[in-house]
């Protein structure tokens, strides 16, 4: 045994360079494996922690909402708290409560209209709002009034402050007794805190029109919430509308097992909660954003993990190929030794044992080297700018999974070296191909082609990744595809070899012929070529895939945002918000409508999806506004060509003067019994519609100034310039007692509405007056309007005949617009929606927007909906939609958000908007950065960089091993050529030419394989962050500059390896082997 080891050691020393090269290959392969394991374990933990650190607190919470709050509210809260803390298991959690009272009567306003108000109790109040005056309410358990703080907006409108007492009445919707609140301060909510979305008014403090009543059919001004002590509110007997118990777990240092347990616990809480509230007679539900976040984390880590495993497998396949080549070279080098040992009686088992001992030693050595190198490489990769920015950088990590994986990989790889010892002792190199071999290879080719086809079919049949774990199909597909394609590509070599033979036969010279013969007749060239083809294919595929993936993330971000920047409109949006957004962002700004729409099919058939989304933007600037790649390079303007109106509605300018009213009303009707409330539909510079509402004024022949208020109850300041595109005159009875309900005759009504401002920008003749569509017939007839344009003002002279008896039942509306009612709103349906309802262009469809329904017409199909890709939806023009809704009498603002493109420096747009006091923006660049470089995402490009580097490294190492071994084995032959008078430089040129030709062909074949794999596999392997098929569909990318540099680098690298090795060996062959006596 000892003698065997000594022999092995001596042989190792004699063949130290070759063994060192083999060791380098094993180390390279195991380092790739080890780094992948670290990415899958330590890297995944860090990525999850970084992601959770960056996740908004609201998405990490778990919440119980209790409705129909029982009398024992405190007990219900305690039960819900228990359920949540039990569900979160080992994660310590901070629990808060948010209780809201029912809406109660709150006296009458200055105009005599009844008002509403409500209370709320927030357990962590100082974190949710800023105290502006006074102090926070103290706990109160006594009989006196509750202490409370008022929203500053409500305090301003009510004209009250600390010290005032407010009484909220009991009522039908607020059982119990009246509640008196002593105001001890005022506050401003932290509106950036998503918790305020729980509030009835979203933290606004006041609304002029809260839907009220059992059927929400009437509106009243409402104030709130008056914040009182949470415990005191819970102790109130009844009168609570809803209580939310929110748990925020501390995820610092939470292990994957802790998080899995929490996710499972939250799932179980859905059944545990009703049991805990048994007997409380309350409705309850669990909302667990944390569980959704953790599920998304699992999915994304599964997607990234699949890519990491792909790289590990490709890396191992490359290393295995390189080692297979090395094993053949070692075997060739040791043929004489093996033959001698066999002749002396050594059995195959002994030879295999000797090989295994050597392989074991190499595996131990490789493990010892690869473990620290993997840790260093992992640290280096995670310290690159993008991963570092994602927060996944950390200290050196040497873990047991790393050691186990590296050791296992080293053993597996070095086992390749043992395989040749298990076969018969090799004789001379086979130089002619047997017919049987050709047949066998043909069978293998067919098998490989079948495997490649199967991989492709499977990927096409199952797009996307499995939701919860590493997807075996995604992992196996590229490895199998690349291997099959690389081996099949090598079948081109015999054709080239045959061509080289023919050329050599016809050639006069020697150098090229020698190279051609060697290429054509040396079987080892195929092994080296396979390694190069596979390595080049892997590197180019990885580069192309990275670009395809990255481009797809950008494309997905564009589709998801819809424009460069979107800014949610506040509700209610101030009149000047569009101008403010445009001033901050610049570029093309459009109001956008984004809300659910209910569809009714007039002529299409099929099943409607449960939720459908409506997106409406200004399609007249579609190309400037909408972003996101359409298939085949299509243009948005072409797609949306049939959606828009001929132009913006012609309007009448309205300029608020420094002094005096902007609008006056003069009118007559039924001797002053009738009144009119003018509502102006105005449009800002961005085309956004909003309304300015005046108070009800008597039609008594007197000219009345109109005080206009916008939806936020603000009056436009002097100098405000707007365009009036519609007027809604709401006629009502000021004194119902003066009307005989039995009288059927109508009375003439005349209203003159005078607007300060210049002449109209359209023709007066285009303005028409009519009741809204669907109005009661006979209520308002013979309507007409005349416009008189002066230099400084415009006057609408409106006439009609109204039924006073009808006004006892409902008010009459008279709409003045400069456009006819659109017959239908042309819309584009998303492809999946159109397929689901079997709708075709020209089909009629009804669009239910809010409480109104407008007719629509299918104008075409869009591959996806801007702003909501992947959702079934409807795309329309915001102007046409606004006109259609206005003609039904619905003047509610349609602006849900502002979309802007062409924004200067969009990366800082969100910050600039925040500085301007505008709500949080979503930028395309930000979403793209999150999709590409987020902690859970950045692992994929990182691992593809690793694959590229590993492939290049293994290709160069393998080439070096191959060239050195081959040339060393041919040193005698090289010497003989020189002995025949072939100049040394010619011999070197022949050797270099031989290897250069094999290398070039192999690298080019590899690039072709990589390109084909990238084109076919990369789009199928690119999945969305949820593991689904991305929208828009990924388009294969082939970054020519990068790929060209990569291929050129490989060629130059191989040349850098081949040329000096060839030169050295040719020189050495001359001096060592040229003498006759040594030539033997």
């Amino acid at each position, binding site marked *: 045994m000892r003698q065997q080891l000594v022999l092995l050691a001596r042989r190792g020393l004699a063949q130290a360079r070759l063994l060192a090269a083999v060791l380098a290959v094993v180390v390279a392969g195991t380092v790739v494996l080890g780094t992948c394991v670290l990415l899958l374990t330590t890297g995944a933990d860090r990525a999850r922690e970084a992601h959770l650190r960056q996740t908004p607190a609201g998405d990490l919470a778990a919440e119980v909402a209790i409705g129909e709050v029982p009398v024992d509210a405190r007990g219900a809260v305690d039960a819900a708290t228990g359920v949540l803390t039990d569900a979160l298991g080992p994660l310590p959690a901070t629990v808060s409560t948010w209780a809201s009272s029912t809406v109660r009567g709150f006296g009458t306003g200055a105009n005599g209209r009844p008002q509403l108000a409500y209370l709320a109790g927030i357990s962590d109040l100082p974190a949710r709002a800023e105290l502006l005056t006074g102090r926070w309410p103290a706990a109160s358990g006594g009989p006196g009034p509750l202490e409370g703080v008022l929203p500053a907006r409500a305090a301003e409108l009510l004209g009250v402050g600390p010290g005032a007492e407010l009484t909220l009445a009991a009522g039908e919707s607020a059982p119990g007794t009246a509640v008196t609140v002593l105001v001890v301060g005022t506050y401003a909510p932290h509106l950036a805190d998503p918790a305020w979305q729980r509030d009835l008014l979203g933290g606004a403090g006041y609304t002029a029109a809260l839907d009220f009543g059992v059927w929400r059919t009437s509106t009243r001004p409402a104030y709130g919430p008056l914040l009182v002590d949470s415990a005191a509110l819970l102790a109130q007997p009844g009168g609570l509308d809803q209580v939310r118990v929110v748990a925020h777990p501390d995820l610092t240092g939470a292990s994957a097992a802790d998080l899995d347990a929490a996710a499972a616990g939250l799932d179980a809480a859905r059944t545990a909660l009703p049991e805990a509230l048994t007997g409380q007679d309350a409705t309850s539900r669990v909302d667990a954003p944390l569980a959704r976040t953790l599920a998304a984390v699992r999915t994304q880590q599964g997607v990234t993990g699949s890519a990491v495993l792909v790289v590990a497998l490709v890396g191992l396949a490359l290393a295995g190929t390189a080692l297979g080549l090395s094993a053949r070279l070692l075997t060739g080098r040791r043929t004489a030794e093996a033959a001698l040992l066999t002749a002396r009686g050594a059995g195959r088992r002994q030879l295999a044992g000797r090989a295994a001992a050597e392989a074991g030693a190499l595996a131990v050595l490789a493990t010892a080297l690869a473990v620290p190198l993997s840790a260093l490489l992992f640290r280096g990769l995670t310290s690159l700018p993008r991963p570092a920015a994602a927060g996944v950088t950390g200290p050196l990590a040497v873990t047991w999974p790393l050691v186990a994986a590296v050791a296992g990989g080293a053993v597996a790889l070095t086992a390749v070296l043992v395989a040749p010892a298990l076969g018969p002792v090799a004789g001379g190199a086979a130089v002619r191909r047997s017919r049987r071999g050709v047949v066998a290879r043909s069978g293998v080719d067919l098998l490989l082609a079948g495997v490649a086809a199967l991989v492709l079919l499977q990927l096409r049949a199952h797009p996307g990744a499995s939701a919860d774990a590493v997807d075996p199909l995604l992992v196996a597909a590229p490895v199998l595809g690349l291997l099959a394609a690389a081996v099949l590509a090598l079948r081109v070599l015999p054709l080239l070899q045959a061509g080289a033979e023919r050329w050599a036969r016809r050639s*006069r010279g020697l150098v090229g012929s020698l190279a051609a013969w060697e290429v054509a007749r040396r079987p080892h060239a195929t092994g080296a070529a396979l390694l190069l083809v596979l390595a080049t294919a892997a590197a180019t595929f990885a580069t192309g895939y990275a670009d395809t993936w990255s481009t797809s993330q950008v494309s997905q971000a564009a589709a998801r945002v819809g424009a460069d920047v979107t800014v949610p409109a506040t509700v209610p949006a101030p009149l000047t918000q569009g101008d403010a957004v445009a001033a901050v962002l610049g570029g093309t700004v459009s109001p956008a409508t984004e809300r659910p729409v209910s569809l009714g099919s007039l002529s299409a058939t099929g099943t409607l999806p449960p939720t459908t989304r409506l997106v409406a933007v200004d399609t007249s600037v579609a190309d400037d506004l909408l972003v996101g790649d359409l298939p085949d390079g299509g243009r948005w303007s072409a797609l949306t060509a049939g959606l828009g109106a001929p132009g913006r509605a012609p309007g009448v300018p309205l300029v608020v003067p420094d002094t005096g009213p902007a609008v006056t009303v003069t009118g007559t009707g039924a001797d002053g019994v009738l009144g009119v409330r003018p509502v102006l539909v105005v449009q800002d510079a961005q085309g956004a519609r909003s309304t300015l509402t005046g108070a009800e004024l008597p039609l008594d022949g007197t000219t009345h100034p109109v005080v206009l208020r916008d939806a936020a109850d603000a009056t436009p300041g002097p100098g405000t310039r707007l365009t009036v595109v519609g007027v809604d005159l709401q006629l009502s009875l000021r004194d119902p007692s003066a009307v005989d309900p039995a009288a059927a005759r109508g009375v003439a009504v005349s209203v003159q509405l005078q607007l300060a401002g210049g002449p109209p920008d359209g023709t007066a003749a285009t303005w028409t007056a009519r009741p809204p569509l669907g109005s009661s017939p006979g209520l308002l007839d013979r309507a007409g309007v005349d416009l008189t344009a002066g230099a400084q003002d415009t006057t609408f002279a409106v006439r009609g005949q109204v039924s006073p008896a009808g006004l006892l039942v409902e008010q009459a509306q008279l709409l003045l617009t400069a456009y006819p009612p659109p017959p239908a709103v042309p819309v584009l349906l998303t492809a999946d929606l159109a397929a689901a309802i079997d709708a075709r262009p020209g089909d009629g469809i009804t669009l239910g927007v809010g409480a109104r329904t407008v007719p629509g017409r299918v104008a075409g199909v869009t591959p996806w909906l801007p702003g909501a890709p992947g959702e079934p939806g409807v795309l329309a023009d915001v102007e046409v939609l606004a006109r259609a809704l206005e003609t039904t009498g619905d003047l509610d603002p349609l602006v849900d958000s502002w979309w802007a493109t062409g924004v200067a420096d969009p990366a800082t747009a969100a910050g600039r908007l925040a500085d301007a006091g505008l709500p949080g923006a979503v930028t395309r660049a930000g979403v793209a950065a999150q999709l590409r470089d987020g902690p859970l995402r950045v692992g994929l490009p990182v691992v593809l960089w690793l694959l590229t580097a590993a492939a290049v490294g293994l290709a160069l190492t393998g080439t070096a091993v191959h060239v050195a071994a081959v040339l060393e084995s041919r040193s005698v032959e090289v010497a003989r050529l020189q*002995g*025949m008078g072939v100049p040394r430089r010619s011999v070197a040129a022949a050797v270099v030419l031989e290897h250069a030709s094999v290398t070039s062909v192999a690298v080019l074949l590899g690039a072709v394989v990589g390109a084909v794999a990238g084109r076919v596999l990369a789009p199928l392997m690119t999945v969305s962050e949820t593991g689904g098929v991305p929208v828009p569909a990924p388009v294969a990318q082939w970054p020519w500059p990068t790929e060209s540099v990569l291929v050129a680098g490989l060629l130059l690298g191989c040349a850098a390896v081949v040329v000096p090795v060839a030169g050295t060996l040719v020189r050495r062959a001359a001096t060592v082997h*040229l003498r*006759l006596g040594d030539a033997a």
Partner: protein
Amino acid sequence: MVDVRDVHRTYGSGPAAVHALSAVSLTVAPGELVALVGRSGSGKTTLLNVVGGLDRPDAGTVHVAGTEVTALDDDGLVRLRRDVVAYVFQTFGLIPVLSAAENVGVPLRLRGLPVADREHRVQLLLELVGLGAQAAQRPGEMSGGQQQRVAIARALAGSPRLLIADEPTGQLDSETGLAVMALIRAVVESEGMTAIVSTHDPVMVALADRVVHVADGRLVDA
């Protein structure tokens, strides 16, 4: 044709120095077949290497066909081996991936002979050595005798003026060796070339015009 004057060649230095050649002088006339005879390690191969320009002596001069070999640089030695001297190795020295015809054609390709002329001469040479039918076979597919005959044909392809053969029958059986010896004798006579052959073979010795004995790096009389 060959004039060796007071050549010394020592390998190594100090106590381990091996004096492979000591004050060796030898003259070979054109068309003469000289057999170098001596025990293994006597200096035969070293002398052949020095004459053929494969090794440089420490002292002395070597002239071949009027050219002072010892004064040639590397390019000169390449030209010498390409145009004047041809070798036949004990182990045949064929390129294994080339066929017999391609091996023979190597020196002709070096000279840039037109393809048709090259193929014609290769065929002639192979027929001369009796292997016209084996032109397409590779060395691994031929016997040792056949390989040595291919080697001789290749040596003759460049029409050398001096043929140097180092124990050309060393790996052949006696019958095959005799045939090879006869072939060398025949081509020396037919091509009018000079040959120096190192050998242990008494048949070869008998076929030589002159026999030179080498012992301990010196030429000795028989």
